[in-house]
């Protein structure tokens, strides 16, 4: 069970005012809020530990290194990964994807094929387009359906022996669709292709078991799950991470350097050039601790109740259309009102202190598919309340009245 009052006290930002009103934060799919427990870890790092890791013989450096590596182990355990060095710290999902794309640019041939889905965020489209330009490989797209799901039958037809890589998000950021990743991975593997799953939108709502999933690469960002911005992870199977060339050159990622030849460090340091976001990495671990202390079963149960309630209430509004009104989805409602631009709704809600996202959500192909300029997206978290949903619904109704 979720003790909503106790939980809300953990998030100092939830008590601030916006435009003179209590903040209602429904933009969790873009960035989740940070609990005091995580803020304290960041403060503690700069108060007690700040130094450079992995290199110093002095006490501070050792303690900071321990804390950073402990965070890696927390992440490893959280995602049920076999080895800690299969977790690479990055600046976030986007960098993780670019790291893999850059690595594969040396391994692909022009006759190879890559598969992405029509439900992707731009960050899981553009790096692969760039990779295709560089290598001559072809990009195939798994189409989407009117319901906002992936067309798995067509996916099966697209796959063939030339398919080398498949990229799909675990959860669509624009619609909240929970994609059948187990099935997608199994089908790809039958054709000898590797799979990267973008978990940016999933990890705040579900706890993926990466070994069970048998995924080859999995990426996510800390700021989507109560952690700080600017830090994330790449999981890769050992043999694949060993196969990929380093992403960036620099300190930390080498084992020896002469002007004739540099040999690279072992995993994970081969991919972690330069001084990383140390406080961010440690806080990433703390964020997982925080979410696990609440419990993902509790989070899922509460968020599903919120989503169900919000969907029912929003549907009472005249002229509403929900995109991706599905059984299997995370707590996201993407909607439009007939003859009203999403930007107008968003601007008016902002005046009432309600934060929603409007626009194409960096997923223009989905908006093109529905032939709309964008949607209003309200995304919920376990610290949101039923009362807040009521206020938003009233807010949308007021906006419609003002606009029509």
């Amino acid at each position, binding site marked *: 069970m979720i003790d909503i009052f106790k939980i809300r006290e953990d998030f100092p930002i939830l008590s601030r005012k916006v*435009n003179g009103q209590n903040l209602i934060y429904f933009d969790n799919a873009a960035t989740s809020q940070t609990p005091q427990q995580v803020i304290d870890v960041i403060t503690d790092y700069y108060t007690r530990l700040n130094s450079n890791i992995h290199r110093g013989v002095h006490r501070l450096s050792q303690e900071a290194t321990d804390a950073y590596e402990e965070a890696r182990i927390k992440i490893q355990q959280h995602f049920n990964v076999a080895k800690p060095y299969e977790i690479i710290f990055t600046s976030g999902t986007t960098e993780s994807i670019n790291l893999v794309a850059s690595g594969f640019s040396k391994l692909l041939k022009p006759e190879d094929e890559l598969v992405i889905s029509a439900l992707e965020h731009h960050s899981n489209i553009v790096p692969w387009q760039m990779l295709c330009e560089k290598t001559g490989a072809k990009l195939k797209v798994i189409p989407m359906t009117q319901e906002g799901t992936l067309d798995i039958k067509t996916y099966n037809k697209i796959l063939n022996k030339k398919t080398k890589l498949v990229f799909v998000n675990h959860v669509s950021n624009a619609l909240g669709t929970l994609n059948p990743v187990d099935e997608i991975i199994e089908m790809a593997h039958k054709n000898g292709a590797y799979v990267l799953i973008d978990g940016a939108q999933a990890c705040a709502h579900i706890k993926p078991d990466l070994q069970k999933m048998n995924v080859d690469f999995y990426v996510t960002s800390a700021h989507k799950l109560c952690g700080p911005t600017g830090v994330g992870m790449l999981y890769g199977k050992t043999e694949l991470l060993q196969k990929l060339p380093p992403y960036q050159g620099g300190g930390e990622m080498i084992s020896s350097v002469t002007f004739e030849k540099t040999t690279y460090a072992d995993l994970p340091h081969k991919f972690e050039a330069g001084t990383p976001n140390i406080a961010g990495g440690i806080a990433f671990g703390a964020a997982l601790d925080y979410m696990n202390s609440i419990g993902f079963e509790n989070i899922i149960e509460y968020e599903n109740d919120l989503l169900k309630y919000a969907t029912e209430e929003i549907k009472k509004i005249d002229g509403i259309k929900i995109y991706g009104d599905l059984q299997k989805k995370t707590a996201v409602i993407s909607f439009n009102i007939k003859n009203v*631009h999403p*930007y*107008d709704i968003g601007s008016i809600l902002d*005046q009432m202190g309600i934060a929603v996202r409007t*626009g194409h959500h960096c997923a223009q192909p989905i908006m093109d598919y529905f032939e709309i*300029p964008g949607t209003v997206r309200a995304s919920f978290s376990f610290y949101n309340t039923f009362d807040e949903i009521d206020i938003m619904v009233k807010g949308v109704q007021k906006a419609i009245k*003002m*606009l029509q």
Partner: protein
Amino acid sequence: MSEIESIQKEIIEEFSFFEDWTQRYEHMIELGKALPLIDKTHKTEENIIKGCQSKVWIHAHLDGDKVKFTADSDAIITKGIIAILIRVFSNQHPRSIIDSNIDFIDNIGLREHLSPTRANGLVSMVKQIKMYAVAFQTQLN
């Protein structure tokens, strides 16, 4: 005081009567609805202002030594903002447009529309209006 400045002062006075944001926004929505239609032939890809979440088209032509603007948007609040900008800048000499500033936006409680985020295009709209003015000024020289 230049003509642009006195129009801006007028708008500030008009907005000062509103007691809260609802009235301010309702007024902007009214202005948006009242904005004269742009000629369809001017709603082209190249007249679209980049950097707006809603689509904004601005067309300009020189009438004697004055610049005339017409515009449209698919979002009504954005259209209201354009209507205000057109009232300030349309039918003015390019030189006056180039020399003007837009501090008045801050004074009519629309400050949030000034932030250069990807979500809103006020800054881009003003930039486009000034670019038109620069181009017409060169023609007049």
